[in-house]
């Protein structure tokens, strides 16, 4: 057995697993009948369809020849990590984490934290540049979201603003 398209093989696998998982999950809800559909009916149907589609894709990836093997290639771990961590950091700083008793730091500190961390995802990173960018973005965000759109954000850390 030889995989002829790596990308299709992986996506076929993803479809099959997710489809099966949804279908399995659906069985814990009432299925009902076509005339009286329970909450599990439609997801069960779709889950099975997705799993079938997945197996067709899987089959194709083994049967249909591709010129270059459709390699997935390396994963860009660096941008992936920094961007996702930066994003999570925004949530943590903005809202705090009650589970570890971290107080909410508010919008401005969250912007600094996120901008600097996300900037590290790029090829060249200079801390000074990141801080300047964060300052600019803080001003813009404050003017646009707080002053103009009046969105409800904690702006400053709770221990300062109370």
């Amino acid at each position, binding site marked *: 057995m030889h995989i002829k398209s790596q*990308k*299709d093989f992986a*996506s076929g696998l*993803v*479809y099959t697993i997710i*489809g099966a998982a*949804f279908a399995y*999950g659906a069985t814990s*809800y009432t299925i009902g*009948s*076509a*005339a*009286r*559909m*329970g*909450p599990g*009916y*439609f*997801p069960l149907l*779709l*889950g099975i*369809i*997705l799993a079938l*589609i*997945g197996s067709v*894709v899987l089959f194709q990836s083994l049967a249909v020849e591709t010129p270059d093997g459709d390699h*997935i290639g390396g*994963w*860009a771990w660096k*941008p*992936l990590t920094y*961007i*996702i961590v*930066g*994003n*999570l950091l*925004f*949530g*943590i700083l*903005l*809202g705090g984490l009650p589970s570890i008793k971290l107080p909410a730091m508010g*919008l401005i500190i969250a912007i600094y934290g*996120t*901008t600097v961390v*996300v900037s590290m*995802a*790029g*090829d060249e*990173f200079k801390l000074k*540049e990141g801080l300047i*960018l964060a300052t600019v*973005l803080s001003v813009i*965000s404050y003017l*646009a*979201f707080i002053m103009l*759109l*009046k*969105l*409800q*954000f904690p702006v400053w850390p709770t221990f300062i603003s109370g």
Partner: protein
Amino acid sequence: MELFNNLALGFGVAFTFQNLIYAFIGCMLGTLIGVLPGIGPVATIAMLLPATYALPPIAALIMLGGIYYGAQYGGSTTAILVNLPGESSSVVTVIDGYQMARKGRAGPALAAAGLGSFFAGCVGTLILAAFAAPLTEVAFKFGPAEYFSLMILGLIGAVVLASGSLIKAVGMIVLGLLLGLVGTDVNSGVARYSFDIPELTDGIGFITIAMGVFGYGEIIANLSKPEDQREVFTGKVTGLFPTKEDFKNMTPAVLRGTAIGCMLGILPGGGALLAAFAAYTIEKKTKLRPGEVPFGQGNIRGVAAPESANNAGAQTSFIPLLTLGIPPNAVMALMVGAMTIHNIQPGPQVMTSNPELFWGLIASMWIGNLMLVILNLPLIGMWIKLLTVPYRWLFPAIVLFCAIGVYSTNNNTFDIWLVGAFGVIGYGFIKLGMEPAPLLLGFILGPMMEENLRRALLLSRGDWTVFVTRGLSASLLAVAAVLLIVVMLPSIKSKREEAFVEE
């Protein structure tokens, strides 16, 4: 004439000072973000959507319309000047537009795109206004079976026109449908797939998915490529206006493009992309005038025709959304989400229950188009400056605004965790060659499809043949089947692949 009364009502709404300002802000913001390379209209709209939360519904929709046109126009600007299509429908614009820019004729190319789009937008708006009323009548005859079949047709149409593998795109739709089911089932009150997380019982926010998959996913993918040699034509945009000769060449192209765009745009599946391709192909088939530049080397018709076509298509693709409540493409799916946030359920009832909103929106589309021409052409220098902003400053800003945007939707940090997860998933999709647009469409349609399927089968007492025994429903399904078969025919299949690869 009823049409003119309706349009007058619409313009009465749209021409208030407040709404004009919102249309203006929308166009500006849309262009601002749309011009940035690597951000398509879907990500742009998702990112700017929170900015409309605080507005009254009409103003919000008008602003969103402006954002949409701005984003599209910004996309063409990037296509012409940087050789980077900001969105799939400006892929063909790149071919001749970039060549024109390299020859120092970026100005006329941008003007041709702008003027062509404006003309197409005017025609598209008129067609939309004219067709909306009769189509709404038809929509009222639709039962649940017809709606279900129509959604099938819409989803099939969407993948048929998408590039890449057909079966994988269908898989993405089904995956989207399933994700759309997460949350409390309206009929039984059962929280499905929520894993006892209270935030998930309300379902996954579509903005969260759109921003995670289209925003974060794309940024990660962009960053993983080495920074390519981008050639930006900043100093060379002189002489904005096309010459007389240019006008002579582009006028018929604009007319043809508009006609093609209007027709294909109505098709479920959203024909903007197909329209652009078809328009370009037709121009290529027509004879060159003596002394005209060949296609692929900077022919102005190669810019004017596809740009007119995609704008006309963008306009008429509002028809299925506004009359039937069914979004034909990912952008329209976002509009549905936006409408629901403002407590408007898109569909035939909008026109009767909310005529000022309906016609106001249509009128503001035209105003949005006009604004793009009178604003953006003179401001082109400013947009070009934006293109020179290095990507290493842009992407942190985009990530930040996405995070702020998802948080502001519910004022809940849970959405921020979720958008991060969808960012990883979105990057995975790109790595595995799975197109995310059908997913978003399926996601929006999921609950609607389930509801209509449930009702149709309840009425037929569980008899599945109801979908083929009712005439209208059967013909909709037949069209969907024909579409699928046609695309799978070997000869068409190779043509389709060729079209997406070659251009």
